[in-house]
């Protein structure tokens, strides 16, 4: 405890920590600013999407008409033309229902469109939408209708929960790794570089306590930083956003079936898995610092190991590998959204086990560690 509070002070009272907190505030503020600016484009973007689909359907109509001119009795083409015309009419109707308060009518029309597009494809028609896109959109719209939740734009939404999800998505996709490496990547190596480790090594302290304190203080600083990030996202989202729904559905694919989790569940899972990954990275940084005693060498080695581990293991398609892959949470979004033949939590035991093993090795290594 005595050493832990000293270690915490060293990080928390550093300029670097202040700059990182400032960077978080600026980054989240920038994100909200972007959403405010692009909000007016959401309707325009929806209109453009409809126009793109119309173009596809018009092109298909030309093809059907041309074939039917040559072969007027072609029943298959007649049916495809009928479906295509229905889609065109549907799109024209949808164009007039883009106001936010008309979301239920719009979602119903969109679902009719997707169902028709699916039937059209099944009957041999060509369409730019894939079956997966169709089924995901259909399921999401049905869920939104059932829950009476208006749909939100995935990227520019100002709805409070959806905005937090945008922030958390950035955080879990390399943001957390970047922050933790900047913040505590040199927690041990800089002690050797600055010779300040001599102060710790010439106190009546067990050296293993130094390692434990370094790890615990890093974890506490990570927790504080994450809490700060979430608090800033909450405050900015609350002040500049609007209410929204924490039970807004997120589509996940589980064993080829479409299921839903709420935004609240998504946020919880995302923070859990990225934290597990961060614990591994912190321990790796501390251990490699004891070997290299140099910040650059340590950081390059950590990044090299993480990159090599992630790339190598992701080439293995054997599904039980989820139990043995400690690198899967480096980019965890995919792990949460697609759970085919695996579940999101399966990598947690191996990642924690590896973290504990690295910690034990670091404890052994520091016992004989010297400053030369």
């Amino acid at each position: 405890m005595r050493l832990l509070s000293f270690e915490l002070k060293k990080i928390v009272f550093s300029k670097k920590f202040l700059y990182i907190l400032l960077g978080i505030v600026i980054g989240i503020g920038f994100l909200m600013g972007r959403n405010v600016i692009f909000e007016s484009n959401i309707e325009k973007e929806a209109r453009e999407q409809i126009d793109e689909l119309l173009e596809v359907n018009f092109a298909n109509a030309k093809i059907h008409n041309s074939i039917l001119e040559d072969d007027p009795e072609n029943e298959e083409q007649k049916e495809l033309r009928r479906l295509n015309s229905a889609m065109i009419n549907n799109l024209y109707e949808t164009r007039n229902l883009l106001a936010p308060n008309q979301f239920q009518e719009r979602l119903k029309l969109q679902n009719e469109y997707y169902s028709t597009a699916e039937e059209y494809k099944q009957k041999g028609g060509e369409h730019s939408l894939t079956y997966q896109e169709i089924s995901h959109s259909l399921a999401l719209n049905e869920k939104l209708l059932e829950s009476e939740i208006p749909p939100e734009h995935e990227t520019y939404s100002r709805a409070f929960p959806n905005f937090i999800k945008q922030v958390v998505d950035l955080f879990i996709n390399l943001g957390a790794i970047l922050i933790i490496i900047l913040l505590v990547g040199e927690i041990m190596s800089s002690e050797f570089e600055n010779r300040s480790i001599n102060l710790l090594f010439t106190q009546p302290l067990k050296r293993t306590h130094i390692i434990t304190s370094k790890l615990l203080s890093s974890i506490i600083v990570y927790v504080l930083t994450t809490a700060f990030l979430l608090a800033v996202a909450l405050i900015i989202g609350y002040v500049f956003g609007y209410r929204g729904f924490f039970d807004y559905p997120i589509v996940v694919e589980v064993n080829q079936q479409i299921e839903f989790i709420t935004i609240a569940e998504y946020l919880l899972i995302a923070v859990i898995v990225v934290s597990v990954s961060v614990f591994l990275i912190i321990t790796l940084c501390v251990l490699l610092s004891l070997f290299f005693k140099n910040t650059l060498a340590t950081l390059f080695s950590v990044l090299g190991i993480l990159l090599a581990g992630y790339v190598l293991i992701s080439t293995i398609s054997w599904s039980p590998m989820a139990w043995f892959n400690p690198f899967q949470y480096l980019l965890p979004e995919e792990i949460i959204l697609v759970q085919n033949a695996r579940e999101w939590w399966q990598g947690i035991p191996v990642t924690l086990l590896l973290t504990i093993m690295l910690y034990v090795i670091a404890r052994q290594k520091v016992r004989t560690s010297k400053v030369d």
Partner: protein
Amino acid sequence: MIIEVSNLKKRYKKQMVLKGIDIQVETPQIIALVGPNGSGKTTLLNCMTNLLSFQEGEVRLLGKKHTDASLFLKVSYLQDNRILYGNLTGYDHMKFVCSVQKIPISKIKEVAERVGMEKYLKKRVRNYSLGMKQHLLLAMVIINEPKLLLMDEPLNGLDPTSAINMRKILLELYQEGTTIVVSSHNLDEIDRLTNTIYFMKDGALLKESLQDISSKNYLITVNDIEKAQKVLKDKSIPFSVSGEYQVGFEETDIDLQSFIDCLNDNDITITDIEVQKVGAEKRYRELFEEELSS
């Protein structure tokens, strides 16, 4: 035994940097470690405190093996100021030492006043001058009232007032029973601090230096310098002449009483006796003549 270093040998790659050092200290004393840069002084202190590994030999401090961290409850090591954390205050450093040494926090103020750093105790170390950092380092190593105090260049960056204050504190600690080992380049300060000087040269502790090397120079002011010169020449006593009325001699050549008697017997009046210590520098010049001439 306070310090027990036996046959300590250390190599960096193929170069021997400590060549079988032996030190035994049984009673409290102040020991100066003197030698040119690269002679192995800091390496020796770092090996003694388990900061550096060594290939051969054994180190025991206050009867405990040097790898036993608990010995730092009564052994302190004043090191380079790079060990300090710029973003923390002097108080933070002291508080940390107090907490790991299990010393009441209330002692911080007392020690800060003793070393003269109470005014800037709560400033961040990055704003400290070199001398202020030395004060903090000193405060950190004496707060636990050590039985053995190892110091690597403690006088670096100290102004004359601070140097005098540090010397006073070290002498007080010594009187309280602390053994102090000081590595320093400041030979004048060492002369004022101790007679026990261990010279280090190329990783070896020079055996002949282990004896007490103190000797004294006397400057005697007389009423008749010419007569005094004649008498001393006649008696074949080595002497030097300083100014118009002073003759000088070294204690190693003749003791003071015999010299006085010699002059008095010849009706020469002595009006003043000035004592000058001949210590570290003279010995250093003898031992490191080669380095000095090159």
